[in-house]
C-alpha cells in the first residue's frame, strides 16, 4: 500500500496542470461543500422523477447495480441513505413510530421502519419527495434487504430481484478467478445479472445499451480508484479527514453518484484536496491527539454530539470499517474491464460485495492490519440495536483485536436510528473513560521512550 504523501497517478498533475498553483483556500473544504451541493441536487432529481414519469429502482449501498440502472435511465433510490437523513434531521422517530403502529416490532431494523413510515406518508422526506419504486434490486449482503424489498413488493406490487452474491465461506478463504469455487460463484452472479437486465428491459421497454453501460462503468472505475486512494491518504498525520463524519458525506456521493461523471469528478477533486492537505500537513478542524479506527455505524440521531464526544478529546477517526462496507467494497479499487463489460461486472460485483461482507463479518483481520500503517491508538466499536449484520460479531471481533494488538478498544451500544435506544450520558461516560485510559497509555509511552525499542502499540501497555 502506498504511503499517504507519495505522488501517484491520482495526484493533481493528472488533471493537466498543477492544482497546487491554486490557492489552498479554494481547495481545502471543497469536498465537503461540493458533497453537500451534489447531495441536494441528487434529491432534487429524485423529487421530480415521478412527475416526469421516470422509473426509479430502490437499491442498497452494498451492490447497487447503479451502472445497469443508469444505462436504462432508471433513477436509484437508496433507502438507507434516506433513513440516515431522517435520523440526522430528527424525523426518524416519527416515522419509526408510524411503522410500529403499522405492526413492526420495536426490535427490528430502524432503517427499515423509517422507510415504512416514509412510504406510509407518501414519500415526503426532509430532502425532497421520494419517488415510488418501479422495481427493487438488492443483494443479500444484508438479509434485511430481502425482507425490506418484500415490503415494497406487497405495498407497491412491483417486481423485486434478489441478486444473490455468495460471500467468503470462512475467514481468509476468499477464492479467486480460475479457482473452481470462484467460477461457480461467478457463473451464478453472471446469470443473475442477465436476469436483472431482462427485468429492466421489460420495465423500460428498452434494450440494454452496452455503450451506456461502459460509460457508467468507466466513471465507477475512476470513483473506485480514487476511493481507495482516499482511504490510504488518511495514513497522514494529522489525518486529512474525519473518517466518521466527513466519511459519511463521501459515502453519500459515492453511492448516489456511482457511475456518473459528477461522481468521478467529485472524487478526483477530493483526492486532489486531500493530497494537498497531506502535503501541507493540514488536518481536520481540531488538534489530533489520538488516532482512532471506527467500527460499526455512527449514532445518527445525535450525530454531531456523538462526533464531539471524541473530537473534544482530540480523538481523530483516521479509518472506519463503514468506509469499506457501505461503499460497496470500493476500498478495493476494483477496475472493470471495459472490453468485457458484462463478464467484468459479474466478477466485480462478486469481489466487491464479498469485500463489503468481509468488512462486517471478518473485519478483525483488516483492523489488525491497519494498526501499524495508520498509527492507530484505539479502536471504537459502536454496536447498534437496529443492525445485526454489522453488530452481531463486534464484541468478539474486539476480543480478537485485543488479543493480536495492544491498542485500546471501546465497545458501546446504542442505535443509528432510534433515539429511544440512545443514552447520551452513558455514551459520554464510556467515551470519557476510554480517553482517560488513552491518556494514561500516552503518558506511559512518553516514559517508555526513555527505554529504546519499546513501542506501546507493538509490545504492551495498559489495555
Amino acid at each position, binding site marked *: 500500500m502506498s504511503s499517504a504523501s507519495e505522488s501517484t497517478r491520482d495526484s493533481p498533475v493528472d488533471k493537466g496542470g498543477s492544482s497546487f498553483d491554486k490557492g489552498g483556500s479554494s481547495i481545502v473544504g471543497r469536498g465537503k461543500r461540493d458533497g453537500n451541493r451534489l447531495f441536494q441536487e441528487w434529491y432534487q432529481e429524485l423529487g421530480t422523477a415521478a412527475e416526469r414519469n421516470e422509473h426509479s429502482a430502490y437499491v442498497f449501498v452494498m451492490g447497487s447495480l447503479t451502472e445497469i440502472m443508469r444505462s436504462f435511465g432508471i433513477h436509484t433510490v437508496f433507502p438507507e441513505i434516506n433513513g440516515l437523513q431522517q435520523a440526522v434531521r430528527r424525523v426518524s422517530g416519527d416515522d419509526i413510530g408510524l411503522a410500529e403502529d*403499522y*405492526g*413492526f*416490532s420495536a*426490535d*427490528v*431494523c430502524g432503517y*427499515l421502519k423509517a422507510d415504512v413510515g416514509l412510504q406510509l406518508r407518501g414519500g415526503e422526506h426532509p430532502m425532497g419527495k421520494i419517488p415510488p419504486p418501479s422495481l427493487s434490486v438488492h443483494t*443479500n449482503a*444484508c*438479509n*434485511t434487504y*430481502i*425482507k425490506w424489498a*418484500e*415490503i415494497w413488493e*406487497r405495498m407497491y406490487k412491483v417486481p*423485486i*430481484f*434478489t*441478486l*444473490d452474491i*455468495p*460471500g*467468503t*465461506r*470462512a*475467514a481468509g*478463504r476468499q477464492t479467486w478467478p480460475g479457482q*473452481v*469455487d470462484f467460477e*461457480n*460463484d461467478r*457463473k*451464478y452472479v453472471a*446469470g*443473475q445479472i442477465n*436476469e436483472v437486465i431482462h427485468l429492466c428491459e421489460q420495465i423500460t421497454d428498452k434494450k440494454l445499451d452496452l455503450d451506456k453501460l461502459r460509460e457508467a462503468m468507466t466513471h465507477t472505475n475512476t470513483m473506485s480508484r480514487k476511493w481507495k486512494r482516499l482511504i490510504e491518504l488518511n495514513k497522514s498525520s494529522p489525518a486529512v479527514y474525519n473518517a466518521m463524519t466527513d466519511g459519511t458525506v463521501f459515502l453519500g456521493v459515492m453511492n448516489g453518484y456511482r457511475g456518473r461523471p459528477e461522481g468521478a469528478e467529485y472524487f478526483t477533486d477530493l483526492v486532489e484536496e486531500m493530497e494537498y492537505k497531506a502535503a501541507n500537513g493540514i488536518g481536520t478542524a481540531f488538534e489530533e491527539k489520538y488516532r482512532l479506527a471506527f467500527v460499526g455505524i455512527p449514532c445518527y440521531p445525535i450525530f454531531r454530539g456523538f462526533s464531539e464526544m471524541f473530537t473534544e478529546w482530540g480523538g481523530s477517526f483516521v479509518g472506519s470499517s463503514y468506509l469499506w462496507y457501505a461503499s460497496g467494497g470500493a476500498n478495493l479499487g476494483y477496475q472493470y474491464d471495459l472490453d468485457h463489460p458484462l463478464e467484468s461486472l459479474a466478477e466485480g460485483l462478486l469481489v466487491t460485495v464479498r469485500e463489503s*461482507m468481509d468488512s*462486517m*463479518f*471478518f473485519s*478483525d483481520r483488516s483492523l489488525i492490519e491497519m494498526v501499524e500503517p495508520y498509527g492507530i491508538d484505539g479502536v471504537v466499536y459502536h*454496536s447498534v*440495536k437496529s*443492525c*445485526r*449484520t454489522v*453488530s*452481531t*460479531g*463486534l*464484541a*468478539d*471481533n474486539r*476480543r*480478537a483485536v485485543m488479543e493480536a494488538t495492544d491498542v485500546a478498544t471501546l*465497545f458501546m*451500544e446504542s442505535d443509528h436510528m432510534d433515539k429511544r435506544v440512545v443514552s447520551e450520558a452513558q455514551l459520554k461516560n464510556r467515551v470519557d473513560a476510554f480517553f482517560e485510559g488513552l491518556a494514561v497509555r500516552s503518558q506511559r509511552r512518553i516514559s517508555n521512550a526513555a527505554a529504546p525499542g519499546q513501542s506501546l502499540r507493538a509490545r504492551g501497555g495498559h489495555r
Partner: protein
Amino acid sequence: MRMPRLLDDYESRSADEAIRMCRELVEDPDFPTVQRWREAGGKVVGHFQVYFPEEIAHAAGMLPFKVRGAPVEARQAGAHFGSYLCSILKTSLELALSGRVTLDLFVSHPICDSARNLAAVWGRNFEYPCEILYLPQNANSVHAATYLRGEYARLTREIEKIAGHRITEDQLRASLGVFNENRRLLRELGEIKRETPWLLPADEAYSLLAVGAMIPREEHNELLAWVLPKIRRGTALPQDRMRLVLTGGFCEQPPLDLLHTIAQFSYVVDDDLLIGLRWITEDIPVGADPLADLAESYLERSSCSPVQHDLRRPKEKMLVDQIKATNAGAAIIIAAKMCDPGLDEVVAYTKALDDEGIPYFVSEFEERMTNFDSLQIQLETFIENLLFT
C-alpha cells in the same frame, strides 16, 4: 467403523415412555447422544438452523447434528456478543464454549444477519473448521440449482477432508435413500397430527421430530417405524378443541412447556417447528448425479420459511393455504425475541390473515422462558372467544 446405537432400549417400553425418553433427550443441554457418538470415535458436523443437506455428512459416516441452542445460560458466550441479539445465537455458542458439545466442523447459513456472523465468531474461537454454506437466496434464478450443486460439491470436499476419505456417489445415493425414508415417516407423523391430533399433542410430536436431529437417521427411522403405529392405535378420544396452525418456530425453538401450554387448549394440526428437518417435502429422486438431485430438491420440492424468499411462494399465502388445507380455525404466530426475519414476517402474516378473516394470536417467546402463566391466560381467552362467538 461400526457405531453403537445411541438411544436406550425403548422397544420394551410403552409408546408414552418412549416419547418421554425423546423429550428428556431433546431438553438435555448436554446432548448425551452426541457425546456417545463421539466416545465411540465418531465425528460430528454441527450445522446451525434452518436447513442443511445432512445427507452429505451422513454419506461420510459423520453425525449431522442440528445446532439449535438450548435452555442454558450464556455464561461464556455472553462476553462474545452485544445485548440486542436473539437467544439461540448465544446459547448455541455457549454449548461449544462450555464443552457440552464438541464438533469437527461447524456450518452456518445466511438465513439471517446474526447467523451469518455466527460462523465468523465461531471460527475465531475454535480450531476446527467453521464456515458458511451459501444456500441460494435467489430461488427464482434459473441458475440457482446449478450453483447449489457446485456449492454442495465444495461442501463435500470439505467434509471429505475431515472424514479422511472420499464420499462416493453410491454412498450419497444410499444416504438419500435413508433420508427419503425419514421424510416419509415424518410425513406420516404430520398426517397423525393433522387427521387425529387428539392422539398426538404438539409437545409430543415435537419430541419425536427433534430427537432426529441428534441421532443417526437410521435410528430415527427405526424409532418412528416402531412408535407411529402405536400412536395410531391410541385410545384417546377427540375433544371439542380449536384446530390451530402454529408458525414462527423455524429457527429458535420455543420451550416444550410452551408447546404443552398450547396443547392443553387446542389441537396444533400443523406447524413450522424445526422446518429444516422437513424442508424437502417429497422423496428426492435418486439418479445419476445425487448432488444435483439434492440441490434441485432444495429449490423445487421444498417448504417455505421467513428466511427463504421465493416469488412463487409468498410466505403469507403459504400460511393461509396451510390453515385452509388443515381445516384449522386460527393461527398462533410466535416470534423469537430479537429475530429480524420472524418479527418482520409477523406483519405480513397478520395483514394477510386480516384480509382472509382468519383469527390469530401473536406472541413473542424466548427459548429460555420458564413462566407461561400469562401466556396461558391470554391463549385461553383467545380460544374461548373463538369458541363462543
